[in-house]
């Protein structure tokens, strides 16, 4: 059996949706990707014991911390989970040193030594006597990470760790985080709504939608061949249409008003098709999967243009184009056979 460090199977009713999630994690980094309000942070809170599920079971490193059948519910402080909050939740009335030292349960001399050690490791010597309100977002994140790791957590959970940072800082802090997580031996769960960030930091990706796990797998599989509409959307697919099977390798994109030939065999249960904006190609002659389009608008982005167009149907599609290509009013677009995504 693989080293299973986290097992979650929980249900909880809320006013606007029901959380029902089953997740198994090994000693690697799992990203939970989902839109706002999909229940991804709630899942972390249930694992930490901040929120109590209605029913189910949570096991961390072989220890049952919650089981509704046997009435086990270990309090948060004894679960040994590291939780990095979105706003870092530093103690505002303590200095950086105090924030870190206060969580070390050792005699005073030893506590100071351990705190000094981790402060040096996280390059916080310069700010150690400052209060949280006096340090930058990046430094705050480092303090929160140091404070969390010094308690030797069994698993680490990160709730949107970069959303409180300025864009130019994010990349840098992300690399730091990746290095830190690389040294951590347990499993890490990381909640995000940013697909790029999730892809860069994680090994596996779980996609959540309205309280449910939509799909879960290795990140490359999820990005290369999403199986569901939600997964396609969350991995950044801009063009999705309702679909109907016409033949073994022929599918009708209802919203686009076209029939598409596919390499992959079309299953009976197909509900949607998707094509990524940068997989669409311009064509100069008619042929298989080449369709007439009506151009509606060209939107200029910093390094490429995005063309909004329709085929026969009502729904608009997006296509990424290099800056130097000029779109014309009437032209042809090619949908590559191997790039069309068949979704449930």
């Amino acid at each position, binding site marked *: 059996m693989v080293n299973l460090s986290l097992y979650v199977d929980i249900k909880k009713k809320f006013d606007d949706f029901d959380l029902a999630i089953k997740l198994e994690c090994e000693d690697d980094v799992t990203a939970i990707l989902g839109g706002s309000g999909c229940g991804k942070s709630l899942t972390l809170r249930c694992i930490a014991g901040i929120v109590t599920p209605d029913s189910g079971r949570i096991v961390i490193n072989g220890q049952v911390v919650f089981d509704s059948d046997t009435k086990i519910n270990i309090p948060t402080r004894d679960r040994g989970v590291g939780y990095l909050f979105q*706003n870092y939740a530093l103690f505002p009335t303590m200095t950086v040193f105090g924030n870190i030292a206060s969580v070390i349960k050792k005699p005073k001399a030893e506590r100071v030594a351990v705190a000094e050690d981790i402060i040096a490791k996280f390059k916080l010597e310069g700010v150690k006597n400052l209060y949280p309100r006096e340090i930058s977002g990046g430094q705050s994140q480092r303090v929160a990470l140091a404070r969390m790791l010094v308690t030797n957590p069994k698993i680490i959970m990160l709730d949107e760790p970069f959303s409180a940072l300025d864009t130019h800082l994010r990349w840098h802090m992300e690399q730091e985080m990746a290095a830190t997580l690389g040294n951590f031996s347990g499993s890490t769960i990381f909640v995000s709504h940013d697909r790029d960030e999730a892809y860069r930091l994680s090994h596996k990706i779980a996609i959540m939608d309205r309280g449910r796990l939509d799909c879960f797998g290795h990140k490359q599989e999820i990005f290369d061949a999403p199986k569901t509409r939600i997964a396609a959307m969350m991995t950044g697919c801009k063009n999705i249409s309702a679909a109907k099977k016409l033949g073994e390798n022929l599918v009708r994109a209802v919203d686009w008003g076209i029939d598409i030939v596919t390499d992959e065999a079309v299953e009976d249960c197909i509900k949607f098709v998707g094509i990524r904006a940068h997989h669409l190609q311009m064509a100069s002659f008619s042929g298989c999967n080449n369709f007439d389009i009506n151009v509606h608008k060209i939107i200029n982005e910093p390094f490429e243009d995005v063309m909004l167009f329709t085929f026969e149907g009502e729904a608009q599609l997006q296509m990424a184009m290099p800056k130097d290509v000029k779109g014309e009013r009437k032209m042809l677009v090619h949908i590559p056979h191997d790039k069309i995504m068949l979704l449930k």
Partner: protein
Amino acid sequence: MDFRPFALSIQVALISTIITFFLGLLAANWTYRLKRGKGIVDTIFTLPMILPPTVAGFFLLQMFGRNSFIGGFLDNFGIRIVFTLTGAVIASVFVAFPLMYRTARGAFEQIDQNIIYAAETLGFSKFKIFWTIKVPMAKAGILAGAVLSFARALGEFGATIMLAGNIPGRTQTMSIAVFTAVSAGNNQVAYIWVAILTSMSFVMIMLMNFAASHKRKRRGGG
């Protein structure tokens, strides 16, 4: 002139403020995250503030009178509440409690709950969270509550006179002394007590405002 009311007032106000401080703090900490029954508990805790002082005094008399259950029980140990300084302290705690409780609760409610959760994940006990995180974070509100309680205890009249009476040198506090002096037509003595009480109240409000502006400045620095 008899200056014993001054000493008695300070004594009653100090002791009752200390008791109110802890009671109010614990009550606030208990109720501010209460899921069920918060409304009713809050109403009961706030009631002494709204009740006419004579009604509060009547309740206390019924509770601590020698024929009552509590009063009778304490009497077995030789502890008397009615017509004693202890009674004056109890009356002051009773009426000042809501001020401490409500101000502290308001301050606790301002705390970002994620900070409390973070402390829990970091292994802090409830006791440690309360004393090292919640209380320091709510410091300004808690101090304001303590000052208000002290001021309220100092000015307490109605419930005190009903429970502790008006015994010169034993339970006659400054605010009762004003009443007694005016009743006896001794305006000069009344003036002195009024002047002392007014200036003390003035200083306390100044202190509170100073604490509040100090807190704002510190926040603004972030």
